[in-house]
């Protein structure tokens, strides 16, 4: 598994496996979309449409929700007395334009989506931005500790605190 024998074949094989896995995943995770429901409305009456692509709230009031999708804005109707807002106890009024969301909807005739459950995720953008910081930090440490030598990556020995035994057998300085 780790030897130099057939190394390039192993690398090539794994590199080919990734697009294959992505293709298989794409085939296995075919989400029902509103557009698909509209192609045969009677067949999809009552079907659940829940996997939206990076949706954001464009507009919201008591009766309808407008979300962004790659194909354009999508309207979702909110039934009267709707109480499917998560986390439990939250209300529709707490949802704001610009927020990310997770939603479960049901396709209804003649051709609209009705909200079944929703969860606003206003912190999603912050989560994505903050996630860049540790990537930069780890990248910086990797640049300091790894070098390209004679066709291979090599981890440099930690000589900065050679007098400290625990460090020599321990971690890169972090």
């Amino acid at each position: 598994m780790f030897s130099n024998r057939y190394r390039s074949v192993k690398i090539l094989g794994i590199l080919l496996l990734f697009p294959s896995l992505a293709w298989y995943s794409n085939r296995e995770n075919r989400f029902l979309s509103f557009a698909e429901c509209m192609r045969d409305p009677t067949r999809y009456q009552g079907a659940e449409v829940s996997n939206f692509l990076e949706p954001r709230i464009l507009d919201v009031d008591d009766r309808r929700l407008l979300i962004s999708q790659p194909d354009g804005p999508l309207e979702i109707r909110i039934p009267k007395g709707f109480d499917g807002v998560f986390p439990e106890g939250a209300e529709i009024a707490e949802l704001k334009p610009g927020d990310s969301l997770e939603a479960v909807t049901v396709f209804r005739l003649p051709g609209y989506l009705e909200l079944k459950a929703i969860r606003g995720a206003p912190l999603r953008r912050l989560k994505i931005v903050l996630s860049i910081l540790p990537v930069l930090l780890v990248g910086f440490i990797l640049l300091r500790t790894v070098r390209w030598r004679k066709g291979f990556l090599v981890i440099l020995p930690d000589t900065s605190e050679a007098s400290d035994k625990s460090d020599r057998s321990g971690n890169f300085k972090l």
Partner: protein
Amino acid sequence: MPDLVTHFASAYLVNRGWKIARGAVFFYLGAMLPDLITRPFHILFPRLLPATLGLHTPFAAFLACWLISLFFRVDQRKPVFWLLFSGSLLHFLLDAAQRHLTGGYHWFFPISGQTYSWGFIWPEDSIRYLPFTLLAAGLVFAVGRWRKRKRRFRANG
């Protein structure tokens, strides 16, 4: 997914607790790897989401760790692989604690498309808990520094 700061801080705490071998940076990298090979693609290109779901799995992480390790010198491949892969498993452990309205993680992909999770916290809750997570990591870091300085002081007489 919890944010990567939480994943990184958790890996740091585990590393400090268990004194993982030299090259801890690979453990940290492994703790972020499943998100690094999937999230940028479906955040920038939302239509790729169905394709990336199968790559945020232990099997794909195993392959990614193996691939990365093959670029290292032969004597360093095994430790690099295990550090990366154990970091990735820690990542999946944290992800498993999450709750979703829709979807979830395909732990046994490509054998099974079933999704499982324990459902303790919502994905963005990690941001709310982040000050506490960072405080814990900062405390451990500070105590580690203090102990190291004390040891050096004693060694120097």
